[in-house]
């Protein structure tokens, strides 16, 4: 099911959470809504689910006006950051909830729950209560629960935000694979750019309630539409008057046109790459990322003075201009 967000504005008191946001999410896509906390991304997701009402604008689901439709009739699956597990129910009853209230036949419910528990790899946990599951298991249970009634859209609000790094990485892969299997239109909210870039086909970047840019991960990285996107998606450092990616910095032992004189403060070799931390004449620090062979050819040492330029040749000239 496609989602269309048209000119949505939402205020909480004097705080402007969403400022005239329009966004189209194609059927079957896996979209990340990325932004720092307070950027309005969760509010947008909650408005799509019907858990919040916009002050202005509309939501269309499959091309049909749905702004006034209650959450229970929107046919969306929603996964909360803190799981929202039904504490007084077993894993089985949690997953079966959407089917139980729809009064489906017992056998059908049993089969569907089995199938879902297998999908989220919780087969042996059906009779446990959520309090006896780990965070990752609870979130997988919540996902199975959201998928039970075969929603047309799956919405995930910082689904991995409360989990530790290892479990997070595991669940990322797993969500990606799940989307390939189930193929339901999926939107997830995250403040972690790496997570967004890794999982999603499309990323929508938000800041201060405004949609900054939407596109494929590579597009955002290579042709950011604003300084905010450049800084937020991937690393960015300030070299002279320009913002560049650390890997775009080229170091030379002699001055050239537009090169900035810098001192090497620290060197760290990180496998295939090396990170060189520099400080310019004004004492501002920046770090460059060099390929290992490049780094070794240069034979840099701490305390040396070198000249840094940026090789942003592949970047759109127009985007560069807006950045400066």
């Amino acid at each position: 099911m496609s989602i269309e967000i048209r000119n949505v504005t939402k205020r909480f008191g004097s705080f402007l959470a969403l400022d005239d946001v329009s966004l189209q999410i194609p059927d079957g896509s896996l979209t990340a809504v990325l932004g720092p906390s307070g950027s309005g991304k969760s509010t947008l997701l909650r408005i799509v689910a019907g858990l919040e009402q916009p002050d202005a604008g509309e939501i269309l689901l499959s091309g049909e006006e749905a702004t006034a439709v209650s959450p229970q009739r929107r046919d969306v699956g929603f996964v909360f950051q803190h799981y929202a597990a039904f504490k007084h129910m077993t894993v089985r009853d949690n997953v079966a909830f959407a089917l139980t209230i729809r009064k489906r036949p017992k056998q059908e419910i049993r089969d569907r729950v089995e199938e879902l528990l297998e999908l989220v790899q919780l087969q042996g946990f059906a009779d446990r209560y959520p309090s006896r599951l780990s965070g990752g298991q609870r979130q997988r249970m919540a996902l199975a629960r959201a998928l039970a009634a075969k929603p047309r859209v799956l919405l995930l609000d910082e689904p991995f935000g409360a989990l530790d790094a290892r479990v997070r990485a595991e669940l990322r892969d797993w969500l990606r694979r799940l989307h390939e299997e189930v193929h339901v239109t999926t939107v997830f909210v995250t403040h972690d750019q790496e997570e967004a870039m890794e999982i999603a086909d499309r990323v929508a970047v938000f800041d201060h309630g405004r949609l900054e840019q939407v596109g494929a991960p590579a597009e955002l990285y290579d042709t950011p539409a604003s300084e905010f996107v450049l800084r937020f998606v991937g690393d960015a450092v300030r070299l002279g008057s320009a913002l560049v990616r650390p890997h775009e910095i080229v170091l030379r032992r002699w001055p050239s046109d537009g090169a900035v004189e810098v001192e090497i403060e620290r060197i760290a070799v990180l496998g295939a790459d090396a990170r060189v931390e520099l400080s310019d004449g004004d004492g501002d620090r920046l770090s460059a990322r060099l390929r290992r062979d490049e780094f070794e050819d240069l034979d840099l040492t701490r305390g040396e003075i070198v000249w840094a330029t940026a090789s942003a040749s592949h970047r759109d000239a127009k985007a560069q201009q807006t950045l400066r």
Partner: protein
Amino acid sequence: MPRRLGLRAIALGYLLVILLAPLGMVFYRTFQHGLEPVWRVLSDHYTVHAFEITLIATALAVPLNTVFGVLCALAIVRRRFRGKGLLNAFIDLPLAVSPVVIGLALYLLYGRTGWFGPWLQAHGIQVLFALPAIVLATIFVSVPFVAREVIPVLREQGNEQEQAAATLGASRWQRFWRITLPSIRWAVIYGVILTTARCLGEYGAVAVVSGRIEGKTETATTLIDDMIQNFQNGDAYAVAVVLAAIAVLVLVLMTVTRPKEAL
């Protein structure tokens, strides 16, 4: 550990002197002369009737205040409306005001010169000095308990579970019965037990509005008082023991039902 032992001794000693000694005394005095006199008093027509009145008032007040308490708690925690602070404060009123004052207020309201009195009299409805007044007084004094137990639990739970249920297709009604009520059930049970205990033990407000007509509007507590006034101390002990036994039973129920982590 001597300090902790000291603390424990103070706590237990205090309870012993203030609570258990008088209660023990009542039990002792009651069964001093065996079971026969106790049974004679308890099977007396007037005693049975007094307990009936107490039980009727309790049986009406408890369900009413349970429903009201849960609704009030939901409104206070989940809704935003004008006068919420006032409602929150009013719930505690019966705890803050002496039951005698509550009784007096009811007396003035339903009395011959009160707001409701003349109308009720014109329609032949007897409230004061009859069962309705006893029930009203009992309801009044037992209002706060369910709401006070449920409010903190609802606050702690938040409403994410209900939101999740909504996105899964549950209607408001289904969310209440399948999610909200089960998750506050211990608080409700606890509140019901406290309400019951309060209703059974109510004296002050009922004493003012019931008229204390023997065999008609006498409740268990006012009967005890009357017996003492008439120097029938032995009889009073017997009735008191039944009330005390119910209280102990309530305490036991409370301890058994309370989830372990709450202790």
